[in-house]
């Protein structure tokens, strides 16, 4: 067979395979992608939402949104605040969601570089983000452009995240308790969280991510544009995290008064509900050093409801 014919057959086969995968993938993703499901629920409930909860797994695992009146959770596992901004913007612009309050997250981890870099499920988030936004979200925009275009052109390449395969055992995780772990394991878990996830092991000078803090500002501005009052929540952490910070991390930036996002929030006079130390001595309510378990979620929601109600009465 002449080379030309081989190339033509190869290209035709590639196009057919691509189209089949494309169609099949979108059909399956519509059913399986939890973020698409969450957005659909948000659209459906847009008229009744008064309080909108946003954030990452800390928010998702700490607050049982159906247990609070007229509250809807847009929080999602591993979501960084830049993607949160785009998701919120999309809901406000397209679903006519008009909450009175938005509960923002301001944990130790939320605005750090380590946390903001290693995010997945780009299939969903990149559908909300324009290519021009990509440039400012990463230090290496070239590789990010490539990832962006790849997901736009070949969305099925992100199938493992889009179809939520990684999240199948999330419910099971929430059933465990931190009490079951030995002292060494608890410290190792806290060390891993601080050193590897937040500090990227050795990049402590970049601990907080300027772009991420800029997006916090943008989120607050967006809320004000829509007459939404922001409230900031600091979710509970285990004592081991504070011990690791105190004993192993030589960084003044982590001290409460020096954390840049918190300084910004103070300057903008946004009320803060601080639960950072609230359950520091309650390993039975956590499954790891920075996530509440199912029992912790229920207990915390009760406390949170009470505190939030008293705050909102005066806000």
């Amino acid at each position, binding site marked *: *067979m002449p080379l030309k014919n081989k190339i033509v057959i190869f290209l035709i*086969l590639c196009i057919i395979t691509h189209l089949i995968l494309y169609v099949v993938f979108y059909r399956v993703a519509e059913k399986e992608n939890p973020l698409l499901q969450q957005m659909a629920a948000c659209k459906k409930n847009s008229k009744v939402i008064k309080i909108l909860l946003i954030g990452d797994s800390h928010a998702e695992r700490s607050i049982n949104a159906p247990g609070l009146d007229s509250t809807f959770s847009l929080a999602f596992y591993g979501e960084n605040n830049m993607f949160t901004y785009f998701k919120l913007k999309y809901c406000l612009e397209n679903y006519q969601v008009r909450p009175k309050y938005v509960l923002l997250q301001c944990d130790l981890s939320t605005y750090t570089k380590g946390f903001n870099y290693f995010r997945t499920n780009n299939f969903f988030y990149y559908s909300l983000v324009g290519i021009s936004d990509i440039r400012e979200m990463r230090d290496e925009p070239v590789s990010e452009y490539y990832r962006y275009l790849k997901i736009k052109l070949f969305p*099925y390449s*992100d*199938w*493992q995240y889009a179809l939520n395969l990684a999240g199948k055992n999330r419910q099971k995780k929430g059933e465990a308790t931190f009490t079951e772990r030995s002292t060494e394991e608890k410290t190792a878990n806290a060390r891993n969280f601080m050193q590897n996830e937040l500090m990227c092991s050795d990049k402590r000078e970049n601990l907080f991510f300027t772009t991420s803090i800029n997006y916090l500002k943008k989120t607050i501005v967006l809320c004000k544009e829509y007459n939404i009052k922001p409230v900031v929540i600091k979710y509970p952490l285990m004592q081991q995290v504070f011990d690791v910070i105190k004993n192993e991390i030589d960084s003044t930036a982590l001290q409460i008064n020096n954390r840049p996002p918190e300084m910004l929030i103070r300057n903008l006079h946004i009320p803060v509900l601080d639960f950072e130390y609230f359950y520091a001595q309650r390993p039975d309510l956590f499954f790891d050093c920075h996530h509440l378990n199912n029992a912790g979620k229920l207990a915390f929601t009760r406390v949170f409801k009470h505190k939030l109600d008293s705050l909102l009465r005066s806000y």
Partner: protein
Amino acid sequence: MNFASFPYLCFLLASVLLYFTLGKNLRNFFLLLTSYIFYSFFGFGFVALMIFTTIITFICARYCYKAETKNAQLGFFLTGLLLDLVVFILFKYVHIIDVDIMNWPGWSAQKLLIPVGISFYTFKTVGYCIDVYKRKYEPEPFLLYYALSVSFFPQLIAGPIEKSHNIIGQLKENRNFNAENFIEGGKLILWGFFKKIAIADTLALIINPAYSNIEKFTGLDLIILSIAFIYQVYADFSGYSDIAIGSAKCLGIKLPFNFNKPFFSKNCREFWLRWHATLSTWFKEYIYIPLGGNKKGKMRTFLNLFIIFLISGIWHGITFNYICFAILSFAWVLIDLITEGSRLKLVNKFRSATRWYLLKIMSYVAIIIMFASVCVFFRTETMNDAIYIFRHLFTSGEAKLGIVKYLFIAGTILVLEFMQMFQASGGGHCFELMKNPYTRIFAYVTVLFILLLVSARPDVTFQYFQF
């Protein structure tokens, strides 16, 4: 720049396009520049070091060839060789020096980075010096060609180790763009990507976390992990080699194959000739034969082999693990040599059509056992971990990996071996033996889309980049 990545493909494509667009006088200069740019992605200092090594060996080899007296020839040869080796040893092994010994303010041996690929280009420059000194080849009169043969980007980082003389010969030929070469190169790159991303990195998903907590595993888990690792390192390194050879082919340069289905070797010696073949050939030509090879009696042959394996181990790194890796590899070859006669008798008994496959299976199992045992030292970071694995290989305990992961590993290995069935011996693209062109095209499309489907994982660095 990661070889198995889209940016590398873009870099290669741009290089090929520009290379063949340029006039013939400019092409090689452009290729040299491209190679230095490619290397500079790993660090500008590394480029400076390579240029230094290149110039030193180029000048010394030239003067060595021109010198009239034997002493002068030896003097220039040793100067080039020693300077080359001093740079290599300094940058590769200085990290093991105790920092306190070099008690200079602000100094730390740990601050020196190991230049990526230094081992590989040092092999070439050393080989070049020896060849010129021995009058095997004339020295290259143009620095441009020599520098390009050292820094030629497809094989700069981890081989294949090709003689400068052979690359220069091809560089000097008038090459025009050849679509067949380009497509053949593309097929090899695709096959290399597949081995790296779909096989090696897939196995790494299980192997890497397991080896970081190896003390949690016992018995069957350890056996499976050890076998899985040899396939991971094979797919990783041979995948890299295929990408390198394919890239060079796109530019019209032929590089030698590095792997030839090594797990199907008949014995240990053959295995080492089919595994990282260009390194084995280098050792054979520049160390083993000058030491006397197998011409000076059995004991001397054993000693020469031991020296080769020891140098190979030290080349990987000066740690107890690599030394043990070398000693155990040598021990297996020694057993192979000593039992050769009795094994031949056994082979003759099996020489019937029906039993032939049994013999092949036995060879395969023996090679897997040999290499898996050797690689225990290669993969583990400490001797304690390696000893732990050997001590717990046959102990019973709770299977931590579980049947699903066993099947996953077995399936991944089977996919690789199945696809290799269609690859001709001596390298080549993966579906060379498929005669029907439609089936072959379909197979390539399948491989391409499998790659796309497994490409959403974080990059895993090539195992041999560290050397």
